[in-house]
């Protein structure tokens, strides 16, 4: 068992939120077609409120802190917040489009000891990337930002969100990442809007595309292992947790709302009205999420994929039932193995052929 696995296991045992994702703003300087956020400012937390929250998170023993948005750098106090988080000894990861990264910003991020910067790149071709962000020139500005970050020795992860419009460009973005000395992550997850609007799901790639990605060793590594038949379901599997959301991780919006995960929009409390630790420990909704074991899932507990499916409870919740299947993950399990899932059978196969994936890290 690795030290990281031990750390996660200990956090689970102690009920510690080891990881927190904090969006400091929903405002953004891009208008990506797949984005699930409302970019208007409906009353973001102030600098002082965020610093107070960071103290609370440190006291709750959060170790891994992801700062994101919207575009986090749209806040003038973004670096002040990052610096403060680092003074509280968080491991900080910043998600940004890098458009606002100049020499000074890159140097400062490095000096502050930010562990990693994640940047979304949709294509190596400006006409494709800029059509997705709806900002002409955005790819060039993003790449300039990445180059500056790399020149200062920052670790950069390029997240390649996969959609119909850029599905032909994964190889190009991979090559670009290699050229820039950046890590590459394929992220095929398109999620409904926070308000439940599902119109963006039309951007998801088709099952045939997904199948080709799942059988590409440059993306998944050992294809035979990745696409192996499901593991047998036993008692241990059925007693297992669906995922870390609400167990060792949580998400906090710019307005102070606390959720189990950024993809799980069930409000569990607000840090403007209650202390974070009280929400974390006592929220009935969080405790409901935590009480769910695989054996409690209405359809998935009887599914042959139960032990190997990457079912997202947040996506299931957005489909109407946090104990139900996530059809996107059903489809992924099917494409990966060729074996129909219990969720698909329950829907009489109507959803087969569409896709919804998890991240593939390289």
């Amino acid at each position, binding site marked *: 068992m690795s030290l990281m696995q031990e750390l996660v296991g200990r956090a689970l045992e102690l009920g510690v939120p080891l990881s927190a994702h904090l969006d400091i703003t929903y405002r953004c300087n891009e208008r990506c077609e797949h984005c699930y956020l409302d970019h208007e400012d409906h009353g973001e937390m102030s600098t002082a409120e965020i610093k107070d929250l960071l103290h609370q998170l*440190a006291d709750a023993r959060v*170790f891994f802190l992801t700062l994101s948005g919207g575009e986090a750098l749209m806040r003038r106090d973004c670096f002040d917040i990052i610096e403060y988080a680092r003074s509280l000894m968080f491991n900080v990861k910043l998600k940004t489009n890098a458009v606002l990264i100049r020499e000074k910003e890159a140097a400062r991020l490095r000096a502050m000891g930010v562990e990693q910067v994640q940047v979304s790149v949709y294509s190596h071709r400006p006409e494709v990337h800029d059509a997705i962000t709806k900002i002409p020139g955005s790819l060039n500005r993003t790449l300039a930002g990445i180059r500056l970050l790399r020149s200062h020795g920052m670790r950069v992860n390029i997240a390649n969100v996969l959609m119909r419009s850029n599905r032909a460009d994964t190889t190009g973005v991979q090559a670009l990442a290699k050229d820039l000395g950046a890590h590459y992550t394929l992220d095929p997850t398109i999620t409904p809007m926070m308000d439940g609007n599902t119109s963006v799901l039309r951007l998801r790639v088709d099952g045939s595309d997904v199948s080709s990605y799942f059988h590409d060793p440059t993306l998944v590594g050992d294809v035979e292992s990745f696409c192996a038949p499901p593991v047998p379901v036993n008692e241990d599997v059925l007693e297992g947790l669906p995922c870390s959301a609400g167990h060792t991780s949580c998400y906090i919006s710019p307005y102070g709302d606390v959720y189990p995960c950024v993809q799980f929009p069930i409000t569990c409390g607000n840090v403007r009205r209650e202390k974070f630790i009280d929400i974390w420990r006592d929220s009935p909704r969080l405790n409901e999420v935590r009480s769910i074991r695989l054996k409690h899932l209405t359809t998935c507990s009887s599914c042959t994929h139960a032990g190997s499916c990457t079912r997202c409870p947040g996506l299931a919740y957005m489909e109407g039932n946090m104990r139900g299947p996530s059809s996107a993950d059903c489809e992924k399990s099917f494409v990966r193995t060729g074996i129909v899932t219990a969720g698909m059978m329950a829907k009489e196969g109507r959803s087969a052929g569409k896709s919804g994936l998890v991240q593939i890290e390289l």
Partner: protein
Amino acid sequence: MSEKYIARSKAVAARVLGGEMMIMSAADSRLFSLSDVATVIWEAADGCTPLSEIVDRRVCAQFDVPPDVAYRDAEHLVEELATRGILSISTQPIAEAAAERPAPEAP
């Protein structure tokens, strides 16, 4: 014997979990766990307190160990931690140490 000064690196993250200090280096994303003694030394590594004083006042005060053994072990430990980028060692006080945790401000 010249005095040694030690300073926590500014490029690490740290948190105590279940009584154990976990440290992650931003330079290479490696995760470390420190023993009780190493945790005491790391927390006291402010760049201006000599290692001998840290051993006398913190280590020997908290652990049942003779001072000469404690100092020898501490020297070995800080060299190992320095090799891993978790702290730095100098024969002079070090100005660039990671700051103490800031006090909460009123929101």
